[in-house]
């Protein structure tokens, strides 16, 4: 049954995306391990950079799942991303062991520095990878569940939901800045040594991490496709386009929203957990509300409600950011980003991919594109219907 669930999602376009992602995931690390004189050689820093973008793309994908298909504009997805990152960071911290500055076999350096004598209860178990891996899914998922349970049941929707998700990530930002929280305060977690016994700096490890990111993105895409292509996905789109109407027809809207919100939060958590070992640090700055909003703009640029759009958008915007901020134009990046926000909302409401898909829609085999109504028309319809 589960295989059927996935097979239904596997149309030609999905196959193509999966093939491209896995292809890049294998090819890029291999090329980086070649001799520098090889014409197709890829420098290691490119692998690290693209690996980071793939994590962002997964975050964008998770935002698209809730925003593009369920109309929940979450301005707090960076919180789930960062929580996943912290779970992974805690595992990596425990792996440092006696190689830290204070050489304490149990306590990470910052705890010794703060004169703590024993490990806080929530740090137990993070010396095991499987435990950390479960936590990567469980912690963001649980937060999303509790938050969504209250919010959706009380029918907090639209802008109000956006604002309280922003308040949530802001509260977490403030909380993680406190040293008393036991997550390294301002400095966060860093100075990682190895993961599963492999040196985290080694090109081979980085290659594997890169592949893992590409694989996670491909898997995330497949799951999203499967969800959207199922009957469940159709109900989601109905909720997005006319929530009250769907409720009156007899669907429990809260349940649908809650499920997709939790799924999305877990995907964001996985993205964060793959991001941290590749970047080498996680600090409270990742909770900043601005990060969440930036993730939303990746989705908007690529085209929301397309699933491919957010991946393209995240890669495009972040390549642009790297290109701008590394040169003399660094000062103008915020102008470009700000302009992008305005231009996309005013002139390209369907995003790059969405616009291209709309042009190609005349072809007969493309009629299955999700959302007969564009999100914009839908929200207008919702306004009028109310």
């Amino acid at each position: 049954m589960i295989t059927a669930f996935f097979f239904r999602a596997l149309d030609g376009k999905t196959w193509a995306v999966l093939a491209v992602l896995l292809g890049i995931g294998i090819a890029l690390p291999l090329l980086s391990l070649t001799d520098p004189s090889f014409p197709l050689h890829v420098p290691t820093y490119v692998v690290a950079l693209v690996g980071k973008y793939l994590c962002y793309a997964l975050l964008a994908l998770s935002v698209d799942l809730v925003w593009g298909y369920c109309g929940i504009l979450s301005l707090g997805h960076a919180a789930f991303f960062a929580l996943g990152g912290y779970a992974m960071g805690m595992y990596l911290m425990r792996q440092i062991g006696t190689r830290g500055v204070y050489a304490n076999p149990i306590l990470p350096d910052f705890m010794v520095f703060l004169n703590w004598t024993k490990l806080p209860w929530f740090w137990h178990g993070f010396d095991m990878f499987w435990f950390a891996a479960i936590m990567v899914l469980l912690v963001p998922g649980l937060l999303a569940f509790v938050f969504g349970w209250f919010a959706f049941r009380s029918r907090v929707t639209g802008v109000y939901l956006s604002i309280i998700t922003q308040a949530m990530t802001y509260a977490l930002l403030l909380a993680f800045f406190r040293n008393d929280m036991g997550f390294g305060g301002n400095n966060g977690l860093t100075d990682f040594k190895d993961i599963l016994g492999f040196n985290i700096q080694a090109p081979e490890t980085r290659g594997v991490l890169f592949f893992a990111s590409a694989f996670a993105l491909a898997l995330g895409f497949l799951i999203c496709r499967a969800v959207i292509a199922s009957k469940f996905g159709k109900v989601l789109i109905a909720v997005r386009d006319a929530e009250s109407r769907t409720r009156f027809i007899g669907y429990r809207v809260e349940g649908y929203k809650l499920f997709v919100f939790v799924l999305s939060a877990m995907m964001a958590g996985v993205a964060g957990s793959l991001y941290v070992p590749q970047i080498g640090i996680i600090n409270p700055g990742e909770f900043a509300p601005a990060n969440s909003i930036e993730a939303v703009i990746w989705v908007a640029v690529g085209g929301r409600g397309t699933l491919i759009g957010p991946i393209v958008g995240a890669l495009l915007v972040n390549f642009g950011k790297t290109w701008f901020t590394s040169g003399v134009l660094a000062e103008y990046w915020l102008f470009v980003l700000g302009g992008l926000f305005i231009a996309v909302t005013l002139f390209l409401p369907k995003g790059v991919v969405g616009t291209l898909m709309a042009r190609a829609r005349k072809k007969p085999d493309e009629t299955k594109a999700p959302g007969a109504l564009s999100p914009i028309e839908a929200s207008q319809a919702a306004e009028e219907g109310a």
Partner: protein
Amino acid sequence: MRPFPSRLAALAIIALTLFGVLRPAFGADLTAQVNALGQGDYAALEKAIGDLAATGDPQVAPVLDALSNGDLYVRKSDNAVVKATKSGSGFTLTDPVTGAALGEAGRSGVTKIKVNNKIRGLVRSATGSLTLMSADPAQRRSAAADVFRSGDPAQIPLLDQAIAKETDPGVKKIMTEARAAAVLKSDMGDADKIAAIAVLSTRADQDALAMLASTASGPDGAVKSAAADAVASIQGQLKLWEGVQNIWYGVSLGSVLLLAAIGLAITFGVMGIINMAHGEMVMLGAYTTFVVQEIIRNSYPELFDWSLAIALPLAFLVSGAVGVLIERSVIRFLYGRPLETLLATWGISLILQQAVRTYFGPNNREVGNPSWMSGAFDLGNIAITYNRMWIVVFALGVFAVLMLVLKRTPFGLQTRAVTANRPMASSMGIRTPLVDALTFGLGSGIAGIAGVALSQIDNVSPNLGQSYIIDSFMVVVFGGVGNLWGTLVGAFTLGIANKFLEPYAGAVLAKILVLVFIILFIQKRPRGLFALKGRSVEA
């Protein structure tokens, strides 16, 4: 307990001092009297100290201090009294009164003036009396405060004299309290001590509390129980003052929140536009203040006290104009699409921040307080700074004016009409696009004048707006969208709640708790504290 004669001597000194204050002191005279310190035995020394104290000359105090520290010597060549400090094998000499250098002397060239404990006590009383009897009330006040802290029972007679003579009621009160503190440490009778406790309990601050607490832990008896009662009463009063202080801090924070949120209450609350660039409007107002002050500083320094009054209308115009520009160029295409508005205005906020950063630089800019905004005054046991007080007044003033504009002017009427029912307002002949632009401009302009006020208490940097935007949204959503009274109540509620939590949870945790509270509150009442009733609610 000090020997009785020393008290007698002290009384004598006081009598002489009272006389001496009126008499002008002459430098030559003083030198002769200082020289008298080195001319004989202890009895002569005591007399010389008495004579010196009798001059009432403030220059005497350091000389007597030097004597008590053993720094005064007699120069053998001319029997003059000098102040000497060891340097190598000899001494460096200075004049004890004027501090002028008098050259060097060998170890055999000078003799130390010997002092004993009795002399030291005498000197202490003499210097105390010199300042307690000083002609300057500020000096008398600080001398009395010194005695209060030391609580030296030997000073009681001195204080009695000083209290009898004191005319300034404020200084007299401190002297009475100082006397009470000294009585508590002396071995006077229970009746005296209980009277002293009564005096101290009216003071009701931490110092008095500490003093009484140590008495309350003493031997049993009437004194102990009186002190314990006084401690309890002071603790009660302190708790009350702490509450008052928390409320004041809360009101102060609430007024800041109100200022930051009130413009948003119009753009978001009344018009339904999610303006993420609202914080940047506040920032523009703050930078307008900076520019105005900069021009005033360079060209018209005498106008500095008026700088805020000049900046106020300018900030309103600058932010208001930017607001109208944003509304006409971006927001008007996005009505009915709140989430898109959110993203577009976020983009605008990034651009405005970076523009200010490029033009003014990324660092904090110095905005000064005019003289009438600096300083503080005491109200009971709490200190209130003028800038905080004026900001509370200002926030309430802005609120009142805004209420009047919305309720009592044709423009306000049109705004409310457009908010309530756009097509109907339009068919009545109201130019809704113009009203939209002006209302957005009004909200932005209010944010600009909030920036003028906030520039007085916060750092003026390109990030100024960012730090207020989330708080502002919280206030508006908590208070209830579309209701200015809700914003007022919301701002002060959140401000006071924050300040009451701070002593228990710390500043950051208090803020987190308030955020969590708002998140939970919105679950319960999704439309805020004062929800608008009617059809618009179901939108």
